[in-house]
């Protein structure tokens, strides 16, 4: 559709991703989407992300389809001596390495930051781990669930009287991935001004989630009270039932209250000035929530949303993925898209943001394990065909054969 190819923000940088986690994969996917040449260096036995459910009918991991798109794949064991030598050859022709090993592992392998830097001045290393490179928990295992537990988020998600609640799927991983990408970009900016000065970017998944927890954390300091989970579900705390699903009517400004109550036919509530302030509504919620929710229950979610939008009242229908895939707004914005090299394949969710001059693009579907092994080693490391064949035959490169 585009007549000329738009420039890309990051097409001057090459990234080697030796991470094996969703957080690492999302970091390099972020950079790949903006034009970086990202080479996923997969263990020969397979990338652990490729085992994550849910699976498509043919057994393909959907989280892997999502997080590995836009990358090339090279099969190589970085924890073997010969594999590592090839990795270092590639690293010397790269700008960024992304990794997710337990702190101490790279050192044991002889490819920690000081040693990488001694072979490639200016290299940027992004480490994305559950608890970071230092501190008493550095080596403790963790995942998205423990990041929610340790950051405070689980303690406020869900309902009082029930168990604390994790976020859905890979929230800590995605947050850490974007923070890692930001760290890499900030380091690139510094390197542009100070040639040869790379650095180690250390991202702890728990800290990125705790950073997102900041308002509750400081709020509970100022109030002197621990922030609890919401005591119950009503219109003041989240989505409530409507005719065909659930709907959040989040009242903040005075006119939201007036206009929403008038729309719902609750003129006496609309005209009662006391309800226009949020602290009063919180204290007197029992006086109105049932009446308002009874009225809301007579509406379909999209009718209510459209009528409130006309009145410029903030509100939100709970949308399913089917509804979002059919959503006219997202379609007009071109959100849903297919990888350029797989036009008959699955439709992907698109960009988190639009860059005017250097658009996000989805050029490649998820690579098959090791799909670009020879291409990458030939093109970037300049390895001859004979040598490549030898490496393949001796099991240094290429995916392991499965029966």
């Amino acid at each position, binding site marked *: 559709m585009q007549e000329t190819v738009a420039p890309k923000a990051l097409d001057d940088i090459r990234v080697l991703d030796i991470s094996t986690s969703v957080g690492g994969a999302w970091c390099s996917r972020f950079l790949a989407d903006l034009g970086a040449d990202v080479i996923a260096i997969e263990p020969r036995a397979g990338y652990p992300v490729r085992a994550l459910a849910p699976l498509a009918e043919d057994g393909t991991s959907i989280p892997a389809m999502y997080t590995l798109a836009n990358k090339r794949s090279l099969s190589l064991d970085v924890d073997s001596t010969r594999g590592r030598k090839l990795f270092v050859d590639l690293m010397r022709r790269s700008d960024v390495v992304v990794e997710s090993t337990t702190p101490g592992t790279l050192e044991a392998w002889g490819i920690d930051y000081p040693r990488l830097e001694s072979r490639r001045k200016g290299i940027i290393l992004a480490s994305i781990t559950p608890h970071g490179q230092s501190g008493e928990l550095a080596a403790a295992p963790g995942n998205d669930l423990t990041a929610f537990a340790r950051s*405070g988020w689980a303690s406020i998600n869900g309902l009082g009287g029930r*168990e604390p609640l994790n976020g859905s799927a890979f929230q800590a991983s995605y947050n850490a991935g974007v923070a890692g990408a930001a760290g890499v970009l*900030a380091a690139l900016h510094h390197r542009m001004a100070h040639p040869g000065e790379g650095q180690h970017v250390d991202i702890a998944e728990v800290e990125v989630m705790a950073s997102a927890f900041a308002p509750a*954390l400081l709020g509970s300091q100022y109030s002197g009270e621990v922030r609890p989970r919401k005591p119950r579900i009503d219109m003041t705390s989240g989505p409530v039932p409507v005719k065909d699903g659930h709907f959040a009517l989040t009242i903040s400004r005075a006119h939201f209250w007036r206009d929403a109550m008038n729309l719902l036919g609750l003129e006496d509530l609309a005209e009662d000035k006391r309800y226009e302030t949020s602290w009063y509504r919180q204290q007197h919620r029992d006086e109105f929530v049932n009446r308002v929710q009874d009225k809301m229950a007579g509406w379909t979610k999209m009718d209510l949303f459209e009528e409130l939008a006309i009145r410029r009242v903030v509100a939100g229908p709970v949308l399913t993925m089917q509804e979002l895939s059919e959503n006219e707004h997202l379609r007009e914005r071109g959100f849903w898209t297919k990888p350029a090299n797989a036009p008959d394949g699955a439709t992907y969710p698109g960009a988190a943001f639009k860059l005017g001059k250097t658009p996000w693009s989805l050029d490649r579907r998820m690579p098959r394990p090791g799909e670009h092994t020879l291409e990458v080693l030939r093109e970037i490391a300049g390895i001859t065909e004979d040598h490549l064949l030898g490496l393949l035959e001796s099991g240094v490169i290429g995916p392991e054969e499965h029966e």
Partner: protein
Amino acid sequence: MSGPLEGVRGIVLTQAWAGTYCTSLLAMAGADIVQVEVRKRLDSWRGSYDGPIPAALTSIPTAKHAWNCNALYNSVNLGKRTVTLDLAIPEGMAVFKRLLEHADIVAENFSPRVLGNLGIAYEQMCEIKPDVILASLSAYGHSGPWENVPGIGGTIEPTSGMSALLGYRDGPPLNSGQMYPDAVAGLNGFAAILAALHYRDRTGQGQYVDLSMQEANLAFVGDAALEYQVTGQQRARLGNRHLTFAPHGIFATLPVEDGHEQWVALAAESEAQWAALCEVAGHLEWRDDARWATNAARKANEDDLEAAIAAWAATEHRDDLAARLSAAGVIAAPVLDSHEVAADRQLRERGFIVEVDHPEAGRWPQTGFPVHLGRTPGGVRRPAPLQGQHNLEVLQELLGMSEDEYEALVRLGVSGVGPPD
């Protein structure tokens, strides 16, 4: 501690959470962020001029002005300077346009119509500062049928597909405990601006960043979106379970003396972790139980598995249990409450939770910069600013304005401090 963005300046119109978090991250990375605020219409996260002083601050003599003592504002504006300027007054706009000449970055999270109405849409900004990077963080983006539909975190959570996925397995869709989509949007906006900065470093060209909170958050549940596209199925709410691994949950442990609830999160993502968990539990027979012999079996018999773990965890002390599991290589953590996170040893040891002195609110622990950079660390260099704290300082430094000129702006109601006259 100099940050990687030393020498980069943002003149920003951000407010509430998504925008202010985005630009506070820029400040912690070393950029000089000057936030422009309007006295007539307080940032909603400053609260209101007649709002209450928070309970724990009432004994602090400097805590005089509610709008400078709001935890919401003070938590997401670390590292910035502020000036008050009323852009609806021509003299105020004139000053803003002069500041713009000194901006590498502008960010805002108004409704999409606002910048255009003020006459400072991207193209108009480019006439003043041709290589400016302008980032707009809005509810639904700057195009499409919902462009002007208002939204906040609490309504983007449902419209991005997130609420439908968050909740207990037997319960309705939920919103998070505080408006999580703002944080997702702010972080993505931060990274987007840095990508635009990289392109500007290479080419000298700025650009426009259009971030839709709905899209940024939908991308964060993109695996569930792709699942629907591939399988036609809406993913069910999972509670604390994982689609692949079992066990994976949060379990009650012994309460502390005052009856305060205590919870531990634990998971096994490999057979080795499962074996270690059984050992820590002192239930070696679990390993030999056919129902739980493999991860697939544990997934298939997860109700029984969770019941057994719950019965055992209820006899344990939270921190001791989490520490023993971690030491054995099992994924585990105490569920920390908001006070415990602020006191957490790991986060403090790494310099991520820091004590910040605020000129009115006093000294409190706050979360700092979640990006640790070995050579150019950045970090918290200033507390959140008081309203208008840097009016004269910034206007003098960037525009060479005299005190008399500034006083004239105050008399016009363009700048100044506190409730409008």
